[in-house]
């Protein structure tokens, strides 16, 4: 660690004027020692795989043997690959449906949980928070059990109401709806906590002033609450969109991206090409595309956020 420690110290050296900053110089080593573990881990498990992935995306590497440079061939193959397009559009569709739903649900529940009019808030908070404890794999099991086609509770209710059982497992769109519901159910808890913190920080005086001026509940929510919690909304939407784009474990146990491959999301596609087909070069190219998408989502949302703030 001391070996790596020397370089950044030198780099940070332009203000090595004797006399003025001797006290500062003394503290150069301490932050490096304290942050050292994370700096090394960042290098080994973020920069290294990232660089490797970028390099392999231009090769035909299969995990063993030599990697031959093949230029942009992986990317060309990628853009002509219909399964990649299906995975990409399906993932985007999932994000577009689930993120707004997650936002509305967590904000509504958080608003109810800070409202003065609602009874039994602490018990309800526990109920809403419980899904946070459940792993994505188990969440998938729970929803698969609820939405089983021939044995599930939901289809039982549907048939009792006189309708035909719905094809929750064999119809691609219905299967996606189940994934959306399960993801919203599992993700609400954490976002709800963030929103509760934000809602409690909105000054009460604003609401009282608005009430005196005759604003109704919706107007108060629209013109006081929403602007006051805008930074939190930005955070929740950003984190949920990034989370939606890398949804993997829950779908694995819910329907393995089925029926067939119709709901295969990008991470699953990367996993299957990289590990099952050992096509590391091609999988790396998909990873790079996904990184670009994630980065664009983050940048776009930051840009929107900054524009609104300005």
């Amino acid at each position, binding site marked *: 660690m001391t070996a790596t420690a020397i370089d950044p110290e030198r780099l940070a050296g332009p203000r090595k004027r004797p006399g003025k900053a001797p006290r500062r110089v003394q503290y150069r080593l301490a932050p490096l020692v*304290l942050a050292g573990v*994370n700096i090394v881990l*960042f290098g080994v498990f973020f920069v290294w*795989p990232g660089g490797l992935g970028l390099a392999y995306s231009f090769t035909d590497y299969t995990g063993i043997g030599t990697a031959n440079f093949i230029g942009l061939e992986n990317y060309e193959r990628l853009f002509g690959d219909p399964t990649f397009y299906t995975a990409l559009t399906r993932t985007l569709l999932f994000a577009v449906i689930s993120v707004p739903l997650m936002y509305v649900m967590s904000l509504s529940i958080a608003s109810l949980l800070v409202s003065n009019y609602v009874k039994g808030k602490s018990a309800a908070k526990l109920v809403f928070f419980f899904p946070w404890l459940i792993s994505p794999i188990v969440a998938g099991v729970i929803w698969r059990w609820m939405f089983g086609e021939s044995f599930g509770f939901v289809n039982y209710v549907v048939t009792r109401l006189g309708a035909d059982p719905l094809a929750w497992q064999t119809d691609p769109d219905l299967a996606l709806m189940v994934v959306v519901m399960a993801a919203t159910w599992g993700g609400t808890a954490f976002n709800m906590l963030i929103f509760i913190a934000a809602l409690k920080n909105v000054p009460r005086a604003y609401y009282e002033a608005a009430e005196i001026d005759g604003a109704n509940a919706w107007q108060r929510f629209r013109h006081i609450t929403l602007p006051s919690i805008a930074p939190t909304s930005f955070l929740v939407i950003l*984190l949920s969109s990034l989370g939606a784009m890398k949804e993997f474990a829950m779908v694995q146990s819910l329907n393995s991206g089925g029926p067939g491959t119709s709901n295969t999301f990008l991470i699953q596609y990367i996993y299957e090409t990289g590990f099952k087909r050992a096509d*590391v070069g091609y999988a790396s190219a998909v990873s790079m595309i996904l990184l670009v998408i994630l980065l664009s989502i983050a940048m776009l949302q930051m840009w929107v956020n900054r524009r609104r703030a300005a």
Partner: protein
Amino acid sequence: MSTTTANPETAAPAAPRRRKARKIREVGTAVPLTAFMWLLAAMYAFPVLWFLLSAFKPGSELFQYPLTFLPENPTIGGFEKAWGRYDFLLYFSNTLAVALTTTLLTVMASAMCGYALAKYRDQRWIRIFFICLLATTMLPTEVILSPTFLVIRDLGMYDSFAGLVVPSIMTATGVFMFRQFFISIPDDIIEAARIDGARETGIFFRIMLPMSRPIIMTLAIFSFQWRWNDYIWPLIVVGDERKFTLQIALRSIVGAENIDWPLLLAASVMSILPLVLIFIVFQKYVMNEDINAGLKD
């Protein structure tokens, strides 16, 4: 607070009637809102309840129409079967070992790094490293699965305990929680300790770390939950069945050609018990919104 109506002095004779009207209006708002919230709560609770109760139904009852909410002949047969068919004790201890070790190391590494990022902000590389960490939340490693696997393999960590622990030690969220906390601690304390001749690392370990106890607890619980429920790291690191974690074992049950539902339900219920216990004991650290607010950064 101040909504509890006007102070009695200014409230003229007309006050009682007005207060009554207000009371009626409040009830008129409270009843539908409370009902709505509990309707939502029921919707969120139902899948878990159905799942829990089903785990206690015998196999024949699971698929028998008409379905009943409560098990007619409650049984723990599924649990016995799961326990007998798979080496769950092994999976539990594997997962526990990984989760505890990683949590300990994550808390230490995040506290040290968060402190460095909070208190040495005058150095440029600290600010750059902060942005680098921020990038890891936007560009998660899950995305670059295959290269990460190759790195783990080249480090000789494939199929090893270290492979499960080491890559997950660094978490940007943990670092941000500590950074946020240490920024709120006045620098005067550090200055005073420096004047008294304390060393920088001594200041951190003897003064700052003990002060951050609430953050340590919160991050420890979060980290334990992340590791206990993690799927993707164990999936790519572990190949040997003897080293499976619970989530991988559950996935292999649910991925079978014919799912053994009684066994799967029972095994899933067992897998969430430790977290439920931890949550019951340490609830206040998880539900404390003030600490979670630090995640905003």
